[in-house]
């Protein structure tokens, strides 16, 4: 039984840590690449969501690397995500692969089934040890999230381009190697110290928020490294989603420090009902970012994503009312790096210009989304 799961940002460190703890066999899919995307797009259904295709690509590459048990989270919608596992199972089975798909569903009526599936996955390890491993992994996830956040906040001041990113990579390793809570506490101090020690320069500050679909916000390879690009363009960046929000879906948002309900309340005048995925948060958090004094918001949307399409139809109105520029990036297998880079650059310039104007007390016309 060689277990695998798709990539999603730093998920590999978290789940990997669980399996290491328990001493179970697993393989990671090869890192995301153009090939992943091509495989996914070739086998995936036409106009299915982008993440369905990329994770399908991960699965295919992992199967080639010897995996035979695929883990995927499943659910009941209203979005498509809940049906990914089943769809991918069908596609892979038809393509002739030999594997077992284990969808993990966490809604109350399906819990008994999920317990059974987990029981198979843990291969005789005790429930207590599984619980301990997961708890420890969640601690790691929380730490990784806070480190990523620190990187987002400081990258714009880097004296050398890429220094923060490099330091962050070392931090990932350090967290990965930590084996006990004591280790983790030590790593926490060291990692933050390492990040903070990156040499800085004084720059003119602009603040840009990132909102959008979960997977795309978390997966740097497929969002074309927007965070890093924005940081390099001189923007203090914050995003509205961290891995922990997804691993512990209580609505708490421990990294950002506010509850989802706050975001929902802000969105209410524009979007008064949940629409699946992160649609309502893309609207609510745009407003939140505006309140916090951000100069612009970038929305990340996988092509054909339903909740984000709704958000995208509503954001121009928000942008007009509140005067915060919003850049919606629609991403699919045809999106080119160059085009996105130019648009981000123009956007950062615009944000900077508006910030200066505001500082000088110049009235600005509201900026329509572009």
């Amino acid at each position: 039984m060689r277990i695998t799961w798709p990539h999603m940002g730093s998920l590999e460190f978290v789940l990997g840590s669980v399996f290491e703890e328990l001493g179970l066999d697993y393989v990671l899919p090869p890192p995301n690449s153009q090939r992943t995307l091509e495989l996914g797009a070739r086998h995936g259904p036409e106009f299915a969501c982008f993440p369905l295709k990329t994770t399908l690509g991960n699965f295919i590459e992992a199967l080639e690397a010897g995996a035979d048990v695929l883990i995927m989270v499943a659910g009941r919608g209203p979005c498509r995500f809940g049906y990914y596992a089943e769809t991918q199972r069908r596609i892979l089975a038809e393509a002739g692969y030999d594997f077992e798909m284990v969808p993990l569903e966490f809604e109350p009526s399906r819990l008994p089934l999920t317990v059974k599936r987990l029981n198979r996955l843990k291969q005789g390890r005790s429930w207590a040890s599984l619980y301990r491993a997961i708890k420890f992994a969640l601690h790691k996830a929380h730490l990784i999230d806070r480190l990523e956040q620190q990187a987002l906040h400081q990258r714009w001041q880097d004296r050398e381009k890429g220094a923060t990113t490099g330091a962050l990579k070392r931090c990932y390793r350090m967290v990965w190697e930590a084996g006990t809570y004591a280790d983790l506490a030590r790593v926490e101090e060291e990692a933050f110290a390492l990040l903070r020690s990156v040499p800085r320069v004084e720059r003119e500050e602009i603040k840009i928020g990132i909102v959008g679909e979960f997977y795309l916000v978390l997966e740097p390879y497929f969002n074309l490294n927007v965070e890093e690009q924005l940081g390099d363009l001189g923007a203090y960046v914050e995003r509205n989603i961290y891995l922990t929000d997804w691993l512990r879906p209580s609505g708490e948002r421990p990294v950002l420090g506010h509850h989802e309900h706050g975001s929902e309340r802000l969105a209410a005048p524009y979007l008064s009902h949940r629409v699946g995925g992160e649609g309502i948060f893309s609207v609510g958090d745009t407003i939140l970012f505006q309140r916090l004094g951000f100069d612009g918001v970038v929305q990340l949307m996988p092509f054909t994503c339903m909740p984000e399409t709704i958000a995208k139809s509503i954001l121009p109105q928000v942008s007009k009312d509140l005067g915060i520029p919003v850049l919606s990036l629609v991403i699919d297998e045809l999106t080119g790096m160059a085009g996105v880079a130019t648009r981000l650059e123009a956007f950062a310039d615009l944000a900077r210009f508006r910030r200066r104007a505001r500082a000088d007390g110049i009235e600005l016309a509201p900026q329509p989304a572009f």
Partner: protein
Amino acid sequence: MKVGIPGGLLYYRYGRLWNSFLHALGAEVVESGETTRSILNSGVSKAENESCLPVKVFYGHVLALKEKVDALFVPRLVSVKRRTHTCPKMLGLPDMAKAAVGDAVPVISPTIDFQSGLWHNYRAVYSLGRIFTSDPRRIIAAGVTAWREHRLYLERLTLGLDHRGALRGEADRLLCEGRDLRIGVIGHHYNVYDTFTTMSLLERLGSMGVDVMTADMVPEKLRERELKRLPKDIYWSYEQEVAGAILACSRYRLVDGIIFMISFPCGPDSIVRVLCEQENRLMGGVPMLTLVMDEHTGEGGFLTRIEAFVDMLWRRKRREAEELEAVAV
């Protein structure tokens, strides 16, 4: 008060219900009528490019009404069946309509959600009624009338009238008249019954001498039975209908071929399509043609594909008949 009902999306299911309810409450109901080229064009230019075709069409209907009414009626249907949802686009529809018209026209949007129980829905309908009248009896009477008309409308659909015919209560011709070849045209109501975006597919099939079977005409029992066989249940209300109908058609050979109508880029359909095509293949079901419609679909190419499909079905049918004869001899 003049209330506008945009004639897109779920209008093709609940239009009758909404209209008669509002009418019975004393509102002056204005409908945007059938989709036209100019409605489609204005919708396409206003809606997000990534939206699905029916949502774009819906925007067009909204804009067509904008100047003519005091309020728009766009209910939010969250769930119409236990343990299911509608599509996210429908959940956000009133808000999208609001963004489309700005502050010019208020949008009336009661929330219907069968997961929150009957009481919630009763209250939603009741407070909708209160906008127009303060007489509770009148609201309830309006509800009863509207519901009765709605049932009648749905029943007519199951009897083989198309949307237009079912609204009027009569049709020159039934979709299914017992001709030799029968094709299942399956898809969401608005993908099948909108004569403009489907380029009068149903009518054309009729004049080609082909019987049409829509999802409404497939017995509900059979659809439900098919859905129960699936390893993972489908959690979209209307998608259940579509998938159930396709699977039932192919398992029980209710038809000689299936045309699956999809709008580009429909989220739920992109998933259900994989399931239906695969199950149909595994069952050794009937030939299936999946048509993906968008605002650029050209009439020429569309017709060619339909004709080729119908020809193929005829040939198959004849071959099968000959084989049968050969066996009999």
